[in-house]
Structures are given as structure tokens and as C-alpha cells.
């Protein structure tokens, strides 16, 4: 390996530190019209009428468009690959603007104006008359109300988007398994934990707001420049929403300032495109303010799960159950897939010798729409599974590390077509335990008294690397050899901050033999030019697109070698066969002797300008991946709890990842840091809170909604267990999302170790801690 496993600096870093890197809003034409969206001030009901006369009179207003003006087309917003099977298509339940209001903040009208001030003033002058219906902001209250009105009666009368039950066997029943266990072991030899766990509604908080601008180009093409994770899917959804042919839409994606799954949904791109069409195709920019972003785009699903688990007194886990109610909000977006993924991970993280039931309901409610967020239901899955484990250990007096080593899933796990082609989970636990000095600290932290107490905790996880076989995994790559032996690399996969362009460059260099400094990756995707890829989500790109780059690179290299054989006048070429040649460090070489034969710049120039063998050397490859391999890992944390103040001080925190070969260790480490930080937000400070009566958000701004600041962030430690996975292009497995899974629950479990209190509602805010410590008479 020449370029894989090296910590290359980011290919886009220079542009980003000098301010030269351009993001969507930086590129909008100066004469763009400004669009703004009016949001509903009720959470459930209908818009009966709207008076826009005053708004239209504001000088500078170009148009006011309401829910009564939009096409009668409901479209799906999820960033999933389209399915040609209608049964597997995403739920189409949203219009561009909605007369039927399903949550507080629903989009009901839009203003387009010549300037920002006029648009804002006009928005305030729109008068809305509503008819209101009762509000249910969470899944359980919606289901408990048998008279609850259906939010999407065309789809389901009971507001349940889907209900699934993943069982170890069709006839598994937790209570029967328990009876069997009592028979076998005796009731006195069993430990059972029964509880409820709640996870928070989380806002993605990418620092760049959702933004796009749209225009109709001189050929009549509806063009949207957007901060999206998936330009090709965006193109399809815009076309569906406007009910126009897909080829009539062009989507361009420049640099994006973070997405984390929020920009895996089509948020406002379809509306933006429609507004431009309605304004004669003039450029219209639509940037969503932070406050509206936090309620009107997407959130991580708040989940509410009843959990049970049974183990023997000597530490053998027997059976488990999860009944999970997932609040999906007003629109289906990703439908049931996130809650289903959560259910699958809960089911499979442990061996369940007597069986397991993981049941899930995803429910439409009068709340902001929940959809994809980094790690897609798995943080919630471990919030259920890994708090259950530690509660069982606490009750049974088991060491949580040993219990995991004994009971976690092993290398034989096969689940839904996904398996461990390489298995590093237990090795991760061993490394983490050693780094944190687990056994010594568990011993030292026994029998503490006083207001400040110390604890260590663990959380482990498994994670599917891609989305196959549930969804299509496909990627296309195009390579063009330039006249000087450098290369253009064009892909539909996107750089969204994670470092994709840099690792793509490394993979392209490794597979072609062209050095990374001569690989020009085209960072901007343009659906008119860029080959197809479904985009950045599911930790898939380095795995799926990486495979496509590798195959494309090998094809390009073969073509280069074939051309070299035509250059008979070059020393050492005559008599060579294709199998003798390779490309390394920008030379065609004899791979038997490693002798350099032809420099690539000479070969390329010859190919372009030869009268006898004129050839433009290019390669294009589409690969679809049907394999899917489990990544895994864990987090260990050592902390202090200041009980009277309810403050958690993290002293040491380490995440260990089993992600196969690490293509770029420095960028991988940086990505783990970011995931750990995001998880600590989920675990300790972040929660978008709604008023249960009105459905209005209390804290939809970055002052009252607390993402970690630098002061809240400890220095993170990161390690990798490197094993070359046979299915990854260069042995790599998922790493984009997994770091966001475990830290929150490791903190919770360390607090249990420190104080004896197992918190079951995230985040562990000072308020929750103090309240609970007081209730238990500890302070």
C-alpha cells in the first residue's frame, strides 16, 4: 500500500482556511430574489383561509404563495434510493406548502421579494385563519388516544407509519421464556431488570443553515444549487414534487457546511425550485433561519422504550425484550427505517440464548419531523440495550466488562444479510479497558461516600457498514487522464465535511498508481455532469464508492498499460506483455523488475496528440455492492459526579473502533472526535423540548439548545483495531456514524458506577441529576 493508511492532509483544507472554499450562499447571483417561509402557529389543524393582500402591497414583494396555490402533489422527502417496487417506495405525504397543518412550524406560505427586509415584512402581514384539532406531540399519547384524528388518513387511519417485531423465532414470547428460565434455573437464581428508557429529540445543528437557490436556465432546465448530501436524489425528489420529468431538473452541490443526516432529506429544495418557476425562472434564494431550521427541518427521533432483560446469577444473559415507541412527527420522511434499524441493533448486539423480541412502532405525531441523523437509530438502540446491560450487572453484582465479553454477539452473527467479515468488538473492549485501567478503577471506586464520586463506564455497539441488502448500494466513478499524466476524478458521492474527497483521492491514487498530488478530485457535484451515486449517508461512501473507485482505477491503469504497449519505440517496451506492466508513482513500470519504463506525462501527451494511435484515456465504472459488513466498537469513560451541583466532569474518555483498514488515520481520528462530541451532547445537554399542549418548541435556538462548546469537550482518546475486511475496497468498514453511538451511554453507565443511580432519561442534565439524587436522599 502506497497511499492507503497514510494521514494525508485534507485536499480541501487550504481553500477552507483561506476562505476561498465556496458554499451555496456564497455562489448565489447578486440579483437573486429572497424567499422566506411562513410557518404555522398551531400544531394540528387546517388553514381555512389566508389574507395576503397587505403582504402583497409591501414595496419589493414579487409574489406571495400559499398552501392554496401549490400543486396538488404529495411527494416523499427521504434521501433513500428510489425503489421501482411501489411497495418499497418512500411515503409521499408532504406538499410544497400544507393546508393540513400537522405540527407547530409546518410550512403554509412563502414570500418572494427583492430584498430581505421586504420579505420579512410581508411575512408578518399574512393573516391566517385556522381550524384547530387536539395535539399529540409524542408517540405514546397519540396511540393511547383511540379517538386521535389520522394525520395522513390516505396512508393509515391509526397514525402508525409501521409496526415491526423482530424476534429470535416466530413463537418467541418473553414471558414464556422467563417461565422456562425459572424452571431451569430457579427464580432465586435469576436477575431481571424491567424499565422504561427515553431518548431526546436532537437537532443536527450543522453550522451552515439549510440553503439553496434555484433558477430556470436558458434551456428551460430547473436548476437548484443546494446544500444537500445527495444531489442525485435531490434531483429526483424535486422533479417528483413539481411533477416534471426528472431530466428537466439539475442539482448542483458545492461545499456544504455540515449535514449529519438533516441534509439527507429534501428540506426546501423542491419549494425553492417551484418558487423560482413561479417567478419566471429568476434566481430565488431560500435560506432557513436557525430557529425555523430546528423545528421545520428534521430531528433525531425521540424514542420511548419498555425494556426487559433476564440473566442468571452467574452472569449469563438469557433473553431480552424492547417495545419501542418512536415519535416521527408530522411527516413520514424516512418512514419506519430508522426505528427498524434501532430494533435490529438492539436484537443483535447480544447473544440471546432464550430469545429476544424487539418490537417497534413509528408514529405520526404533531411534532417536528424526525428523520436521519448521524447513526440512524443506533444511539437509541444502545440507550436501550447498554443501559439494560449495566442495570443487570449492577443488580447482579457483575463486572460490566466481563459480562459483555461473555454475552456480546460473536463473530458468527448473521443478521438481515449482514455479518462480521472481520470481528474486532471484543478486542476493542480489551484495548479500551487497558487504556482506561478498568479493573483497577472499578476496585478503587467501590464504597464511595461524599458529594463528589468517581465512576467508570462502558458502552459497546455494532454497526452496519452500508444499507445493503435492504436498499440498493450503487456508485459510479469517472476518471479522465489529462494531457500531463494527472487525472480528473469525478464522482456522485459527496464531500460533506467528513473528508470523503481526501480518502477518495487516496483510493484513486492507490488503484491507478498516479500520485495523490496529481489526482484532481472534482468536489462539486452537478447532476448534468457527475456520474450517479446515491450520496453521503449510512457510512457507505468509503465502502461503496470506495469499491467503485478502486475498480475504475484498475480499469484506467489497464488502459494506460495497454497504451504503453503501443509505444514500441520506448526503451524496454518491445516484447513486453500486458501482464508485465503496472503503474507506480506516475510511471509505467515493469512489475517484475520494478524498472521505470515510461513516465505518465509522456504517455498521456503522446496518447492525446498521436497521429497514429490517438486515444483519450478515460475509465468509467459503476458498481453495486450486495455485501454488508458489521463495524463495531466501544467507549470507556472515567468521570466524577458533583452530586449537589449535578455536574459530570469527564476525566478520561476513549473510543475504540473496529472499522477495518483505516484509509486516513488522522482524518478518521478527527471524525471520531466529532462523533464523540455529538454523542456527549445527546448524553448530557441536548434536548429540543416541546410544549405538550401547543406543540411549540421552547428552545429552538443555539443559546437555549445546548450543543457542546469547547469548554464542555474533554480531550478525546481514539484507537482503532485494524483488520482488513475482505469486502471493503481496501479492507475498510463503516466509520462515519459509529463514533456518535456509544459515549453518551458510557457516561450514563459511569454515573451509575459512581452514584448507584441508573438514569433512564437522556440527556443527563444537572437538573435531572439533582432531582434524582434528592429523590433518593443522596443529597
Amino acid at each position, binding site marked *: 500500500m502506497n497511499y492507503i493508511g497514510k494521514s494525508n492532509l*485534507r485536499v480541501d483544507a487550504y481553500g477552507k482556511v483561506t476562505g476561498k472554499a465556496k458554499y451555496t450562499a456564497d455562489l448565489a447571483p447578486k440579483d437573486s430574489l429572497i424567499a422566506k417561509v411562513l410557518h404555522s402557529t398551531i400544531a394540528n389543524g387546517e388553514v381555512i383561509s389566508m389574507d395576503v393582500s397587505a403582504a402583497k402591497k409591501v414595496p419589493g414583494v414579487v409574489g406571495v404563495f400559499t398552501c392554496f396555490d401549490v400543486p396538488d402533489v404529495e411527494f416523499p422527502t427521504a434521501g433513500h434510493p428510489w425503489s421501482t417496487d411501489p411497495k418499497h417506495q418512500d411515503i409521499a405525504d408532504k406538499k410544497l406548502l400544507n393546508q393540513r397543518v400537522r405540527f407547530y412550524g409546518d410550512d403554509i406560505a412563502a414570500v418572494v421579494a427583492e430584498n430581505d427586509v421586504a420579505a420579512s415584512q410581508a411575512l408578518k402581514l399574512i393573516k391566517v385563519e385556522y381550524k384547530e384539532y387536539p395535539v399529540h406531540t409524542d408517540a405514546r399519547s397519540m396511540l393511547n388516544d383511540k379517538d386521535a384524528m389520522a394525520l395522513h388518513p390516505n396512508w393509515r387511519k391509526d397514525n402508525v407509519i409501521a409496526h415491526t417485531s423482530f424476534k429470535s423465532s416466530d413463537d418467541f414470547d418473553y414471558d414464556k421464556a422467563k417461565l422456562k428460565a425459572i424452571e431451569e434455573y430457579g427464580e432465586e437464581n435469576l436477575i431481571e431488570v424491567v424499565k422504561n428508557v427515553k431518548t431526546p429529540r436532537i437537532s443536527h445543528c450543522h453550522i451552515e443553515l439549510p440553503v439553496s437557490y434555484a433558477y430556470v436556465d436558458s434551456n428551460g432546465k430547473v436548476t437548484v444549487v443546494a446544500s444537500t448530501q445527495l444531489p442525485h436524489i435531490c434531483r429526483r425528489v424535486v422533479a417528483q414534487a413539481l411533477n416534471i420529468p426528472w431530466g428537466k431538473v439539475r442539482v448542483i452541490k458545492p461545499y456544504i457546511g455540515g449535514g449529519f443526516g438533516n441534509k439527507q432529506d429534501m428540506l426546501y429544495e423542491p419549494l425553492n425550485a417551484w418558487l423560482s418557476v413561479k417567478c419566471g425562472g429568476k434566481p430565488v434564494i431560500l435560506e432557513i433561519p436557525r430557529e425555523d431550521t430546528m423545528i421545520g427541518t428534521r430531528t433525531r427521533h425521540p424514542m420511548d422504550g419498555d425494556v426487559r432483560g433476564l440473566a442468571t446469577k452467574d452472569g449469563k444473559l438469557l433473553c431480552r425484550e424492547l417495545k419501542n415507541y418512536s415519535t416521527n412527527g408530522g411527516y413520514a420522511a424516512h418512514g419506519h427505517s430508522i426505528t427498524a434499524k434501532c430494533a435490529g441493533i438492539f436484537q443483535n448486539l447480544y447473544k440471546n440464548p432464550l430469545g429476544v423480541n424487539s418490537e417497534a412502532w413509528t408514529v405520526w405525531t404533531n411534532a417536528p419531523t424526525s428523520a436521519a441523523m448521524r447513526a440512524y437509530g443506533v444511539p437509541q438502540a444502545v440507550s436501550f440495550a447498554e443501559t439494560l446491560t449495566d442495570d443487570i450487572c449492577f443488580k447482579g453484582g457483575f463486572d460490566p466488562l466481563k459480562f459483555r465479553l461473555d454475552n456480546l454477539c460473536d463473530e458468527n452473527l448473521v443478521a438481515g444479510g449482514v455479518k462480521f467479515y472481520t470481528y474486532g468488538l471484543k478486542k476493542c473492549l480489551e484495548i479500551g479497558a487497558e487504556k482506561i485501567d478498568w479493573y483497577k478503577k472499578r476496585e478503587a471506586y467501590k464504597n464511595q461516600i461524599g458529594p463528589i464520586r468517581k465512576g467508570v463506564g462502558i458502552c459497546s455497539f455494532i454497526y452496519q457498514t452500508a444499507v445493503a441488502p435492504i436498499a440498493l448500494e450503487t456508485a459510479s466513478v469517472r476518471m479522465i487522464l489529462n494531457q500531463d499524466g494527472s487525472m480528473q476524478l469525478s464522482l456522485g458521492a459527496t464531500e460533506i465535511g467528513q473528508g470523503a474527497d481526501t480518502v477518495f483521492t487516496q483510493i484513486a491514487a492507490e488503484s491507478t498508481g498516479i500520485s495523490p498530488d496529481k489526482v484532481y478530485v472534482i468536489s462539486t457535484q452537478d447532476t448534468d455532469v457527475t456520474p450517479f451515486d446515491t450520496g453521503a449517508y449510512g457510512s457507505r461512501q468509503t465502502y461503496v464508492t470506495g469499491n467503485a473507485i478502486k475498480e475504475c482505477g484498475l480499469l484506467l491503469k489497464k488502459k494506460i498499460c495497454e497504451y504503453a504497449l503501443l509505444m514500441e519505440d520506448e526503451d524496454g517496451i518491445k516484447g513486453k506483455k500486458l501482464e508485465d506492466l503496472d503503474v507506480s508513482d506516475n510511471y509505467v513500470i515493469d512489475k517484475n523488475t520494478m524498472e521505470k519504463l515510461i513516465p505518465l506525462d509522456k504517455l498521456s501527451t503522446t496518447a492525446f496528440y498521436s497521429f497514429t494511435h490517438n486515444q483519450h484515456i478515460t475509465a468509467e465504472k459503476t458498481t453495486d455492492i450486495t455485501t454488508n459488513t458489521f463495524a463495531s466498537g466501544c467507549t470507556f469513560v472515567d468521570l466524577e459526579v458533583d452530586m449537589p451541583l449535578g455536574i459530570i466532569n469527564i476525566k478520561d474518555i476513549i473510543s475504540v473502533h473496529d472499522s477495518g483498514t483505516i484509509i486516513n488515520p488522522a482524518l478518521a481520528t478527527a471524525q471520531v472526535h466529532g462523533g464523540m462530541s455529538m454523542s456527549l451532547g445527546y448524553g448530557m445537554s441536548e434536548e429540543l423540548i416541546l410544549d405538550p399542549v401547543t406543540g411549540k418548541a421552547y428552545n429552538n435556538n443555539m443559546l437555549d439548545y445546548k*450543543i457542546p462548546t469547547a469548554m464542555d469537550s474533554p480531550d478525546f482518546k481514539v484507537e482503532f483495531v485494524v483488520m482488513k475486511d475482505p469486502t471493503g475496497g481496501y479492507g475498510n468498514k463503516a466509520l462515519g456514524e459509529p463514533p456518535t453511538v456509544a459515549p453518551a451511554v458510557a457516561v450514563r453507565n459511569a454515573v451509575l458506577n459512581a452514584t448507584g443511580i441508573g438514569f433512564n432519561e437522556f440527556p443527563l442534565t444537572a437538573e435531572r441529576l439533582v432531582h434524582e439524587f434528592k429523590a433518593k436522599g443522596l443529597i
Partner: protein
Amino acid sequence: MSKKIITLHVNGKDREVMIDERESLYETLRNELNLTSVKKGCEVGECGACSVLLNGRCVDSCIYLTMWAVGKDIVTVEGLRDEENDDITDVQKEFIKEAAVQCGFCTPGFILKAVEIVGHNKPYTRDEIKKLITGNLCRCTGYMNIVTAIEHAIKHNMDKLGVPYEVMPSTTSFDVPEDEKDKMLESLLAMQNNDVTKI
């Protein structure tokens, strides 16, 4: 609307601009002067993405009226340059070397804050650095590499001043030696436009 022509001193030059008296410095810098490194993340002074240097101190330009900036020295990332070496600044180099950049949207704000911090000529600890940058939010990095980059930039400055200063040793077994990072940076900079324009 009362429009007014004023002169701002931006990135070392006097710039005449016509503004609305009510507009923010953020709006003027982006819309009138096309300084697009000044980013919008919240518009209410919560996130720090729109930070600019005013007389060497970072302010959130989204909640600072353009009128107030008249007569002050305004610096955005576009105006940062190590004039002595005709190169990007140490802060920018360290952000590249320490992988402190991911999506890059908060980066200009952090870099300007770091320039201010380094300019204090004080041997700040990591905890002090964290406190100083707490007005800038980042969702990608977890701040760790940003703090490290600033530490390293302070180290360069302390070396120049002859003040002893230790940076935190790496916490991962995958770390790359400093001289190797320097070499990579050198080749990265060699690829950039500004070196092409020197031809």
C-alpha cells in the same frame, strides 16, 4: 430607507461602500465587498461563524452595525497573510496540519479567534484556550484538533518570543510526526493557486 456612503478599512485597504444605516457588518462585508468567508450560522451572535477582527479583537459581525465599524481596522480571513514570509499564517497552517478543519464552515471564525488569541502573546493552557474559543461553535470536530492547532500556533509564537511552552502530547497511537506533517503541508501549499500565480 436611508442609504449612506461610508469608508471602511478592510483587510488593509480603504473601501467606499453604500450601506443602509441599519445593516449589520456581516451584511456589508458579504453583500457589498463579497467577503464570503464571513459565514451566517444564526444571525443572533450565538455561533461565531461570522466572526471578524475589529482592531485585533473578534466580534460577531451579525450583531454589529456597520456604522460602528467606521474608523476601525477590519480583518477577515481573506485578509490574513504572513507578509514577512509571503505565506499563509501559522494559525492557518496549524489548522491544516492538525486536521482541525472538517466541513470548514466555522473555520474562518475560529481562525480569526485563534489569530486574536495568539496575538495576546500569552502561554495559554488548553483549558484557557477552550474558554477563549467558547463563543465559536463547531459541530464536526469536537473542538479537540482546533484546540491543538491553536496550541501549536501559540508554540510558534512563544518560540519566537523565547518563552518555554509545551503542547499536549498526542493521545492516539496513529499520530504522524511533526516533520512529516510539515513535508505534507509544503507539498499541499505547492499545489495551491497562489503558488501558480507566482509563476
